[in-house]
């Protein structure tokens, strides 16, 4: 396992190894996800073979209980996981960064109130908020899951943005910019965002992994996107009943999930070290 070297973070070479492994894993999923847009081995909704067939040259991972090709479903799973991750992080980033900046600029009592509310929202786990929002939308679809996760993640992003922005706001160069006549929007664009961006983007990578796992959990609970959106979570849920005859169906989606989540985390670690070489990871 190439990530074995991650545990000696003081070593420069191991950093780049972790980063490489991260890029490889994420790149693989991105490549598969893009490929599904133009080509799939089988029609994902049609019976491609017998029920619960074992792996063969025709069906690399066998077929599910309805005779659908499992490898095809897994490929679509990559695409869905990436859409969910990117979508949820984008929504979480827009809402979170806006709220966080507002809190950082707000008067004392408004800032305190926002900070306390965020602390409580964070105490609600992502999954519970997502369950409620998904239940709130009449028809469960992929977008309701993405919006739900984005909203849940935004509390975490907002808290981090607030802390980071407050740290920048007390700097002398902000005072200098203010006295030389820069407007607040200009200060945000020129001084604050560029300064907090490196830390935020590493956090976004971690949130991406969380969102992918949370969506799989939602789908597993039956609150995710309906067919033909073959989310890894739903494949797992469907395969759980036939785990004795077709164990691959319950193993493969899990491996795909873990490989994407680990890949994103390695990428985040590598990015953090690349951005801040003085940081001593532990």
């Amino acid at each position, binding site marked *: 396992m190439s990530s074995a070297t991650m*545990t000696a973070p003081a070593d420069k070479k191991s950093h780049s190894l972790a980063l490489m492994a991260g890029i490889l894993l994420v790149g693989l999923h991105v490549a598969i996800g893009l490929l599904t847009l133009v080509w799939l081995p089988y029609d994902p909704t049609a019976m491609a073979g017998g029920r619960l067939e074992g792996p063969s040259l025709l069906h690399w991972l066998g077929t599910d209980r309805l005779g659908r090709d499992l490898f095809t479903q897994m490929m679509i799973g990559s695409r869905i996981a990436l859409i969910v991750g990117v979508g949820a992080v984008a929504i979480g980033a827009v809402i979170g960064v806006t709220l966080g900046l507002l809190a950082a600029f707000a008067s004392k009592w408004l800032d305190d109130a926002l900070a306390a*509310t965020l602390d409580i929202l964070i*105490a*609600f786990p992502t999954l*519970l*908020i997502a369950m409620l929002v998904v239940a*709130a939308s*009449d028809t469960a679809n992929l977008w309701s899951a993405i919006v739900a996760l984005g909203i849940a993640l935004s509390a975490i992003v907002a808290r981090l943005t607030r802390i980071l922005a407050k740290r920048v706001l007390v700097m002398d160069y902000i005072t200098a910019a203010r006295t030389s006549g820069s407007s607040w929007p200009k200060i945000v664009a020129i001084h604050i965002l560029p300064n907090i961006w490196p830390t935020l983007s590493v956090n976004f990578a971690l949130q991406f992994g969380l969102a992918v796992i949370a969506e799989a*959990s939602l789908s597993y609970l039956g609150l995710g996107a309906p067919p033909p959106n073959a989310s890894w979570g739903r494949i797992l849920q469907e395969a759980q009943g036939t785990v004795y005859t077709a164990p691959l169906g319950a193993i493969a989606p899990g491996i795909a*999930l873990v490989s994407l989540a680990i890949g994103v985390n390695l990428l985040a670690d590598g990015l953090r070290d690349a951005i801040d070489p003085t940081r001593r990871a532990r």
Partner: protein
Amino acid sequence: MILIASLFIAAIVLFVLLRLLPGDPANALLGVGATQQQIAAARAQVGSDQPLYVQFVSFIGNLARLDLGTSFVSRASVLGEIGNRMSVTLPLTFFGFVVALVLAIPLGILAAVRSDKWYGAAISVISQLGIAIPVFWVGILLVTLFSINLRWLPSGGFPLKGWANFGEAITGMILPSLTIGLVMGASLLRYVRAATLDVLGSDFLRTARALGASFPEALIRHGVRNGAVPVISILGIELASTFLGAVVIERVFSLPGLGSMLLLAIQQRDYPNVQGVLFISTLLVLLIGFAADIAQRLIDPRLRGRGRALA
């Protein structure tokens, strides 16, 4: 004070989230093809015909008296049902937590003290899985191994008589607790390891060694107390998230706990049940955080002057 203020904010959040659910809660009481009078009567019964601020005031008033109402679907008392479900979820959380502690503390310290050895490194790498692995998948894998292939333990379920059927209840708890414990233990281990590394690099440990204490002696007398402070705050968060994350695990093992109650209530639009479960969960999560805060103050006298958190 802070605890009560937090609960109040949590109640507001809860109220807003619940009103986001589409459809009138009164619909849950009605069959298909109900008449206008029946709809109006049902709305009056659940109070959804009142203006929002009236609903909010009575909502807060009821919560303050711990009056959680009765289920729209089963007509049973919500608090009573939560009590029944707790008899599954609380032991599950507790056993899972114990497994996590038993795994994470010794292994985390070992991984830090022996970080130059291959097994120290191996422990750290495996613990990285903890943040990347979905807990329900671990559950499915354990069921595949221990229930289906080895046939040692049941794949799920809980005796109808509950803990009165002690043997069956305990065997039903083993795999779910192990699942929670493994995943939670892995992420906890990373914090224990980091805290230990901090302690190992500290001046006070070097001083203790210079004054003649042996390495294990110095580590136990000075290291544990110092290292425990950051770990306890993480423990609080982990315990809370385990308790609330039980919803997925209960589904994997078909356990009749609080999580399955919430899932069913959401599907049935059973507002009183959804609201009751979420309120009691939030209360417990806040209490856990509070307890972690107090434990930290007991261990580290330096934190005691840091403002009062006691309500």
